[in-house]
C-alpha cells in the first residue's frame, strides 16, 4: 500500500499536464495541420506561429499592455496595503473589524456585476482604454487580498520588535522603513506575487475597460476567432506564451504559495 502512494500525485500531475501539452503540441503545428490531421505530436514542426506573434505589433503589444498594467497594479496594491495591514495587525480602532470584513466583501464581488458600471464610470472620468484604468480597477480585489496576506505575515512578527525600536529612540517612520520593512521582505514578495497573479489571470474587467491602446494579450487572443476563420495555431501559441510568466515566478514562491491562498492565515 505504502509503496504505491506516489501513484496518486503522479496521476494527478499527468492529468494536469495533458491539456497544457495539447496546447503546446498545437502551437507547433500549422492551422491546416491542426484541422486536417489528428496526431499526438506535430508532424511538420513549425515555429511560424511564434514568429508571427513576436513580429506582429498587434500581438506583442498585447503582452506589453498586460505586463504594464499588472506591474502598475502590483505596486499600487502593495504600497497602499502595507500601512493598512500594519494598522490592522497592531492597533484596535473604531470600526476595524467591520472595515476588515468590508474589504473581504470586495474580493467576493462578482466582476460581472461591476462590468457595466465600471465601463461607464471610467469613461466618465476619461480613463477608458488606459493602463491606469485597468490597474485601478484590479485594486478592487487585489488590495483586499494584499491586506489579508500582509496582515498574516505582520502578525507573525512579535510586537516586541516595535517596542524595542521605540525604546532605542527610533521615530515611527524610521522604524517602519529601516527595520520593519526589511523584516517582512518575504511577506512583501509573496504578496506582490499574488497581486501579479490575480491581475494577470483576470480578463473580464481588463477587457471591458480597454479598446485598442491598452488591450491585454488575453483579449487580443479572441481576435483569432473573428478574422480569417479560426487560426488555431496562433491561438495555441499565444496561449502557451501566457503560461510562461507564471511558470517562472512560481518556482520562487513554491513554499509560500499555500500561505498566500489562505489569505495569510495558515
Amino acid at each position, binding site marked *: 500500500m505504502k509503496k504505491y502512494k506516489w501513484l496518486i500525485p503522479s496521476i494527478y500531475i499527468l492529468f494536469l499536464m495533458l491539456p497544457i501539452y495539447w496546447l503546446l503540441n498545437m502551437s507547433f503545428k500549422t492551422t491546416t495541420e491542426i484541422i486536417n490531421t489528428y496526431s499526438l505530436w506535430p508532424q511538420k514542426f513549425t515555429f511560424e506561429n511564434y514568429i508571427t506573434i513576436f513580429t506582429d505589433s498587434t500581438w506583442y503589444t498585447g503582452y506589453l499592455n498586460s505586463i504594464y498594467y499588472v506591474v502598475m497594479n502590483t505596486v499600487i496594491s502593495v504600497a497602499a496595503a502595507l500601512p*493598512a495591514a500594519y494598522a490592522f495587525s497592531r492597533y484596535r480602532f473604531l470600526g476595524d473589524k467591520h472595515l476588515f470584513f468590508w474589504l473581504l466583501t470586495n474580493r467576493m464581488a462578482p466582476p460581472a456585476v461591476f462590468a457595466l458600471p465600471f465601463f461607464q464610470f471610467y469613461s466618465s472620468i476619461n480613463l477608458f482604454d488606459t493602463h491606469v484604468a485597468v490597474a485601478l480597477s484590479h485594486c478592487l480585489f487585489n488590495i483586499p487580498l494584499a491586506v489579508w496576506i500582509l496582515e498574516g505575515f505582520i502578525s507573525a512578527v512579535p510586537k516586541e520588535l516595535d517596542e524595542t525600536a521605540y525604546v532605542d529612540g527610533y521615530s515611527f517612520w524610521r522604524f517602519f522603513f529601516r527595520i520593519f520593512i526589511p523584516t517582512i521582505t518575504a511577506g512583501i514578495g509573496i504578496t506582490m506575487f499574488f497581486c501579479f497573479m490575480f491581475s494577470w489571470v483576470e480578463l473580464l474587467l481588463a477587457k471591458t475597460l480597454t479598446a485598442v491602446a491598452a488591450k491585454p494579450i488575453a483579449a487580443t487572443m479572441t481576435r483569432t476567432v473573428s478574422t480569417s476563420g479560426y487560426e488555431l495555431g496562433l491561438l495555441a501559441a499565444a496561449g502557451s506564451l501566457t503560461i510562461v*510568466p507564471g511558470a517562472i515566478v512560481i518556482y520562487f514562491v513554491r513554499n509560500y504559495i499555500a500561505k498566500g491562498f489562505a489569505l495569510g492565515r495558515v
Partner: protein
Amino acid sequence: MNKTINQRAWLFVIPVFILVAFNAVVPLMTVVNYAFQETFANNVFTWEGTRWFKQILRSDRFHAALGRQFMFTGVILLIQIPLGIAIALSMPKKGMGVPICLVLMSMPLLIPWNVVGAMWNIFALPEIGFLGHSLNDLGFDYNFTQQIGDAWFTTILMDVWHWTSLVVLLSYAGLQSIQPAYYQAAEIDGASKWAIFRYIELPKMKKVLTIAILLRFMDSFMIYTEPFVLTGGGPGNATAFLSIDLVKMALGQFDLGPAAAMSLIYFFIVLLVCWVFYNLMMRNEEQK
C-alpha cells in the same frame, strides 16, 4: 496578540479605503440606481420602485440560472474538497518530490482564465482535441458543443483541473504543520490509519479547509470567463451560470433595470454565505 487602542491607525487605512471605495462604492451605487429605475434613450429615467426585483425574483430564467449555479458550485465542491485532501495526504513529506509536486500542481492556477477556457476548448473538441477524440475512439458519443450532459461534464472537469490544486496546496500546508510527535504517539497507541486521519490530521486541517471552501465557493459562484470561452453558456442555456446570464442581460439585451436588480440579489447571496464563513474563520482564529 493584544492590540493597542489607537484611533490614529485610521490614517494608515485611509489610502486603502479610498482606493477600494473608489472602485466599489461608485459602481455599486450606479447599479443600485439602475435597479430602481427605467431607462430610455437620452438618459431619461423614471422611478420604478421594486418592480425589477419582483420581476427577477419571479422569473423562471433567474430561477433556472440560480439553480444551475448552485448545482455547479455544489458538484465542484463535492469533488474538489475530498480529492484535494486525498492528494495532499499522499504527497511526499520531504525530499526532491516536494518542490516538483508544488510547482507542477500550481501551474493551472497561473494561467489566464480565458486561456484555460480556450485550452479546454481545443482539448475537448471531438475532431481535433485529445479528450474528445479519445472518448469518441472509446465508443462514447461525446460532443460538448451539442449535448447538454457532455457540456456539463467538460465544464466540471475543467474546473476540477483548474482549481483542485488550490485545495491540495492548502491541505498540504495544514498537514505540514503537524508535529511528528503526534504521529509517534498515535503509533504507540496503535491507532488505525482512519483514526489518525480523523483525530489528528482532519482537526489540524480544519482552518485551512474552511478557507479552501470559502474561496472555492466564492470563485465558483462568480465564474464567468472559463465557461464563457469553453461553451459560451450553451448548448442553449445549459451552462449559462449566473454571471453569464447577467452579462447577457446587461450587455447583450441592455435590460439595465432587471440586470441591476439581478446583480444586487446575486451579490447579496454571495455576501450572505461569505459572512457565515467569515465568522466561522474568525472563531477558529480566536481559539488558536
